[in-house]
């Protein structure tokens, strides 16, 4: 035998980029295992089945019947959000520029004598003296008397001092402390076109500007006057984090106004009107106003502000689009298993050697795997979330629950956010799988880091402070991406998952990204230096 003189030349040539080839190869690996493809489809189905059927299993019962018949008619504010807009309004038209100034000498209130009782059910006999923290009385300039109109108001509150609030969601603090005859608060609103400026004063002579509201809708003749409102008081069933349900108590607030001066008014006489009567709280004989000795006394019930989820400040049931995403964590568990196995089965079968022989640049191989698990889970999560959100709204309304409206961009953020949440979680699982090289421990690690904290938060098992910290510092913080409606400090509610999270949506998502990036870096480092 003699050696050949001409060396053998391969017949195989390629022009494509090496990273694109790797991604293509990993995609082929994924799609040629039927079990993996079916598992991803199963994840999508489970996310939707759990989110739609289990969560909305029972229809709502009400005096009109059940299900869709119970669906309330809810006003929406200028920003499109659902609002409470029920209060007693003592008003005059204001055709153009002008200002309204009052001195508030008293704010008192009444609550139901029976704990957990609904004030409307008991009448005056069931009342006792009491003032809820966000009871409010003051002056308001509103575009019209229609619920959901644009407005700006200066007010004194039960325990949060003087506030300027406008268009339902904005709230600015003014003078602190409660008012009394000895320590009255002066309030002033100045209108110029669609701009309203709020001032307060302790003396009536030295004024402090609190805020400026530009209210596009506020043109022509508007309504200016005095108001009083007192929101439903929510008492949760358990002092835990998350939605445990609770009871609502109606309340009344009475404000006493002196030195009422409207500049720019035309009629000179006041008209009283119970806006949104019965919409929230008490609707009985105590509501109304009295004018005596230059003083105006106004009594009202209800609230002017945003509706929050968990039915914490409404007499009807509310849900958010995030309530239809409770199945996400189930799909997530399945996708975590797939993503972990995408690398761990290669170790178990010894296939990793074939893979690394075909692709000796190991960092790029890990990146290609991350691209594939990321894209597959992003697509699966986005599709599942889109179905859950779109179909969920129909299902919830059919059951009689009011779905808090959100903007299209928010909806898109929630849907794609679920896709991104699953994708980054999958990359985290892939990375941990690369580090640990065992399916079971990898899946256990990810579930302990991500799913368990979420379930603890949603189930309301932990004390509120602990649950909040868990949802801030663990990868489960990323579930904040599902939050569709904001939390308001000026509205008492049951702010917990699945509707509310301690971190803002993108901040929570960034926490998960941090964990994923760190574990991916560790995985790449170990993969490069370890023998296989």
């Amino acid at each position, binding site marked *: *035998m*003699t*050696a*050949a003189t*001409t*060396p*053998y*030349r*391969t*017949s*195989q*040539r*390629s*022009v*494509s980029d*090496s990273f694109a*080839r*790797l991604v*293509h*190869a*990993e*995609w*082929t*690996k994924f799609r*040629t*295992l*039927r*079990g993996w493809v079916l598992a991803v489809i199963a994840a999508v189905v489970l996310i939707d089945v759990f989110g739609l059927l289990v969560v909305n299993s029972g229809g709502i019962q009400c005096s009109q019947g059940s299900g869709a018949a119970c669906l309330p008619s809810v006003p929406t504010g200028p920003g499109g959000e659902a609002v409470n807009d029920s209060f007693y309004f003592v008003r005059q038209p204001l055709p153009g520029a002008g200002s309204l100034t009052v001195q508030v000498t008293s704010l008192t209130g009444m609550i139901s004598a029976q704990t957990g009782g609904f004030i409307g059910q008991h009448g005056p006999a069931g009342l006792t003296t009491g003032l809820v923290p966000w009871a409010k009385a003051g002056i308001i300039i509103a575009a019209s008397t229609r619920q959901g109109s644009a407005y700006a108001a200066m007010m004194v509150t039960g325990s949060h001092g003087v506030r300027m609030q406008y268009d339902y969601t904005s709230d600015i603090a003014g003078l602190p402390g409660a008012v009394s005859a000895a320590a009255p608060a002066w309030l002033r609103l100045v209108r110029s076109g669609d701009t309203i400026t709020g001032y307060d004063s302790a003396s009536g002579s030295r004024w402090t500007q609190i805020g400026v509201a530009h209210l596009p809708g506020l043109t022509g003749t508007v309504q200016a006057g005095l108001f009083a409102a007192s929101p439903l008081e929510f008492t949760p069933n358990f002092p835990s984090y998350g939605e445990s349900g609770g009871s609502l108590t109606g309340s009344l607030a009475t404000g006493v106004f002196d030195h009422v001066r409207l500049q720019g008014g035309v009629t000179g006489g006041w008209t009283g009107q119970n806006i949104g009567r019965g919409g929230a709280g008490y609707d009985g004989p105590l509501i109304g106003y009295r004018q005596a000795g230059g003083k105006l006394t106004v009594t009202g019930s209800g609230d002017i502000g945003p509706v929050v989820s968990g039915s914490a400040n409404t007499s009807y049931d509310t849900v958010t689009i995030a309530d239809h995403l409770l199945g996400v964590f189930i799909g997530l568990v399945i996708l975590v298993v797939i993503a972990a196995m995408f690398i761990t*089965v290669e170790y178990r*079968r*010894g*296939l990793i*050697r*074939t*893979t*690394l*022989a*075909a*692709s*000796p*640049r190991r960092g790029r191989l890990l990146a290609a795997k991350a691209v594939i698990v990321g894209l597959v889970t992003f697509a699966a999560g986005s599709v599942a979330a889109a179905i859950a959100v779109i179909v969920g709204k129909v299902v919830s309304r059919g059951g009689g629950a009011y779905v808090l409206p959100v903007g299209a961009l928010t909806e898109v953020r929630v849907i794609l956010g679920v896709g991104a949440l699953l994708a980054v979680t999958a990359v985290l699982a892939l990375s941990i799988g690369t580090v640990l090289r065992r399916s079971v421990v990898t899946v256990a690690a990810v579930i302990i880091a991500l799913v368990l904290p979420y379930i603890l938060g949603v189930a309301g098992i932990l004390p509120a402070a602990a649950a909040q910290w868990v949802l801030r510092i663990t990868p489960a913080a990323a579930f904040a991406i599902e939050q569709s409606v904001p939390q308001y400090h000026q509205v008492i509610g049951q702010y917990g998952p699945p509707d509310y999270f301690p971190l803002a949506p993108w901040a929570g998502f960034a926490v998960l990204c941090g964990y994923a990036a760190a574990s991916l870096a560790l995985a790449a480092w170990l993969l490069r*230096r370890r*023998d*296989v």
Partner: protein
Amino acid sequence: MEATIEVAGLRKRFGSALALDGMTFTVQPGQVTGFVGPNGAGKTTTMRVILGLDAPDAGRALIGGQSYPKLRRPLSQIGALLDAAAVQPGRTARNHLLWLAHSQGMSRRRVDQVLEQAGLASVARRKAGGYSLGMRQRLGIAAAMLGDPPVLMLDEPFNGMDPEGIVWMRGFLRSLAAEGRAVLVSSHLMSELQDTADHLVVAGRGKVIADAAVADLIAAASGDTVLLRTSGRVEAMTALTHAGATVAATGKDTLTISGLAAGQVVTLLNQAGIGFSEVAAHRASLEQAYMDLTRDAVEFRAQPAQEGTVR
């Protein structure tokens, strides 16, 4: 690129075990090089180092003058079969080759070519989990051939093959070498390589203990004997012993002579005028040569071993 594998001074320690202790050899193109040695000799570790899977503590391994991680499309430069069992059971053979092909930017058509070449075309759409070990070996060969590489490296490819498969494998390896490729085949059974390998690298205890052409190894083995059938048994014994041979009487009229070639025996007998009816040279088998070489290098032995070298 030159179709060679060069391994120089590889050292590798796993914990307290020294797996490679200066492994050095070169695989030339155009021939089948057998890589033999007892279990634990370092064959598989050497192959892993060649493929860049294990990092050596010292030394280097080059394919056509380049280290493995530097190869741009490695499967077109060296095809390897390390572990035939390393497949995903739920994936079909064809899809297993398909992802490998995609990783190198190669097409579906090439996959079908190598399936045909490995004799798997009819079962290509079956799940690899249902394959026998012999079929998996063929699948491993197909994978190694995917890039049509000038260098092939196969670890124990005969394992689990039926006799027909072994015959096929031998012919296949010979044809690859005939095309000018360098072929390195490991085995712990020398008999498998008897009629296949042109050259042998014998490993023991992490280093090379013999590196020679198969013909030279056999010639150097201690087992060469000459069988003599003669009626003058006593005279023959005297004459041959006098000439330096070791002679043993193995029957009424037969002698077994070692230390002299058959031609020398005939010359001596003719000079002494001793008649004989048969002289037969009994060649040592490759197996015997191998056993001689590795007797001292077998890892698990009671008595302290000495280094055996035939160079």
